[in-house]
């Protein structure tokens, strides 16, 4: 029988022919925790096994990114625990402060995530690794503890949805606008429990960083995984990282529960208004909304290419009076490249607060928590009530270019006039 990517991967990992709806026990290829979920996992592992251990240290990644560097004593304590665990277990894929970045960025750019892999992470945005053709999904601490102890986890084989995106993206419109548009149409539970595959010429023409934005936000429509078939773009991206892989995709004629078609050649920049990621509007409907803070960064849009687009707008201009713009590259590698190419200079000269890699304000952790009634526009992924700080604050989600244009004007703005 012909199979979707999810069926092929879960079949391979469980050693049998699988169909949607079936529950399988699968071998995990890579298991990732970060500084906030890791200690919870360690607690559970110790409670079950009496000591901390993992089934295979080569297949475990521990990456510090949420409260990085530690911003309070409790966060520091958690990092002390995880450092000790990483050392004790001999975890090579351990990335401490300043030596990695946001976990999802690190998994892809270090070449840890590869086509056809089954990856679990104790973070919902683990789906990001779907950009290189992996089945990657978020799990809780107890499930991760099971994985650490046994290397296995049970899964229900999901139905798959094929998302076809066609058309050349207009100037000023990016992968972020595409995924916001899709979520706006299908809603925040439009893909719950499903494996989503992205197809079509728009996707084929996207770089890996762009595909990461798509895969990353597939969880915002409830998807269990959001995958892009691995093609020559993927092979080349990983080759540059010293990893040789083969293309990987669904079988021709695979069965999909549903197909969604999007034509994007006339798409406008999109903005998700509070307090739901599916409250999506074309930027023209929200232009002029005053903002207090602009944030460019996160696992969704904190890559080199994102800051290059933002810098096109910020170059020679200033962040508006009364607005602060926070720019945080998603990893040390992205930061270094931006530094070498002078992009950090442009951001700093425009008045941006440029920080080292961390999740920071995206989840209201630190480096830009919002006060009462404050409004932010952000290149991140969630605009839930209180997500970035005070429960009365508001977050609008948009592409880095839209965020940059808004920072310059002090209100939500269309980036196209600057490009």
């Amino acid at each position: 029988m012909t199979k979707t990517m999810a069926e092929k991967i879960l079949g391979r990992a469980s050693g049998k022919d699988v169909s949607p709806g079936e529950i399988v026990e699968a071998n995990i290829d890579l298991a990732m925790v970060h500084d906030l979920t890791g200690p919870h996992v360690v607690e559970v592992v110790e409670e079950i096994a009496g000591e901390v251990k993992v089934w295979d240290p080569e297949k475990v990644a521990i990456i510090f990114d949420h409260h990085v560097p530690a911003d309070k004593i409790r966060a520091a304590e958690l990092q002390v625990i995880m450092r000790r665990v990483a050392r004790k277990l001999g975890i090579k894929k351990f990335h401490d402060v300043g030596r990695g970045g946001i976990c999802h960025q690190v998994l892809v750019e270090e070449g840890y995530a590869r086509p056809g892999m089954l990856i679990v992470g104790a973070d919902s945005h683990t789906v990001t690794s779907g950009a290189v053709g992996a089945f990657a999904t978020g799990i809780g601490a107890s499930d991760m503890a099971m994985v650490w102890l046994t290397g296995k986890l049970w899964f229900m084989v999901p139905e798959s949805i094929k998302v076809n995106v066609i058309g050349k993206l207009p100037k000023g419109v990016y992968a972020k606008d595409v995924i916001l548009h899709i979520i706006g149409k299908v809603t925040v539970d439009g893909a719950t429990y499903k494996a989503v595959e992205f197809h079509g010429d728009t996707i084929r023409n996207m770089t890996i960083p762009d595909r990461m934005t798509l895969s990353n936000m597939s969880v915002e429509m409830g998807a269990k995984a959001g995958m892009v078939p691995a093609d020559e773009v993927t092979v080349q991206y990983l080759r540059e990282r010293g990893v040789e892989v083969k293309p990987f995709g669904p079988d021709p004629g695979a069965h999909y529960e549903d197909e969604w078609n999007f034509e994007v050649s006339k798409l406008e920049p999109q903005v998700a208004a509070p307090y739901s990621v599916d409250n999506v509007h074309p930027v023209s409907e929200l232009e002029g909304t005053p903002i207090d803070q602009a944030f460019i960064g996160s696992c969704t849009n904190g890559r080199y290419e994102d800051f290059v687009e933002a810098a096109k707008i910020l170059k020679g201009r200033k962040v508006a009076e009364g607005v602060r713009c926070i720019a945080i590259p998603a990893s040390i590698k992205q930061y270094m490249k931006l530094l070498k190419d002078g992009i950090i200079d442009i951001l700093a000269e425009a008045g941006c607060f440029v920080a080292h890699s961390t999740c920071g304000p995206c989840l209201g952790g630190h480096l830009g928590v919002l006060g009462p009634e404050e409004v932010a526009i952000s290149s991140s992924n969630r605009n839930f009530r209180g997500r970035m700080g005070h429960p009365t604050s508001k977050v609008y989600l948009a592409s880095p270019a839209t965020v940059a244009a808004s920072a310059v004007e002090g209100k939500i703005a269309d980036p196209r006039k600057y490009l």
Partner: protein
Amino acid sequence: MVTKVRAKAIKVGDNIDTDVIIPGRYLIYTDPETLGRHCFEPIMPDFYERSKKLGGVIVVGGRNFGMGSSREQAVVALRGAGVKAVVAESFARIFYRNCINQGLPAVKVPGISKVVEEGDEVEVDLEEGAVRVYSPSGELKKEFKVAKLPPSLLEILESGGLVPYLKKKMVQ
């Protein structure tokens, strides 16, 4: 026995996300009491007190309850606030798994949010596969038949979650 619980209902809406259940800034904690005190803080700052005063509650949600982050602390927070079960029109995937693993009954009951009103009591009876709604006077308003859980999942719930379940298995 967690498989049959009855308590006052507290209603919430559709698409309740895990940031609303426990905001990100509290993820540095894992203990039920600390997390419980901040449960639902962005939408119902008095949730903890209300729940404790009622001797624990059953949360009645709409569609897609628990969407967003994979934080298992969301379930720990609910437990810490004295929540005995969550019933909703539908659940987000990771949250549902986390509930089972934490021993908190989570039951999908299409139509429940239209029937339950403030002040009602809800009974979750997992063994019989039923969810019953009682008016404040104690009268049975409606009984929903729900799919029974597979025995393995029921056993995890009965044990109080994945950790006590595995410990019990190891002893056996």
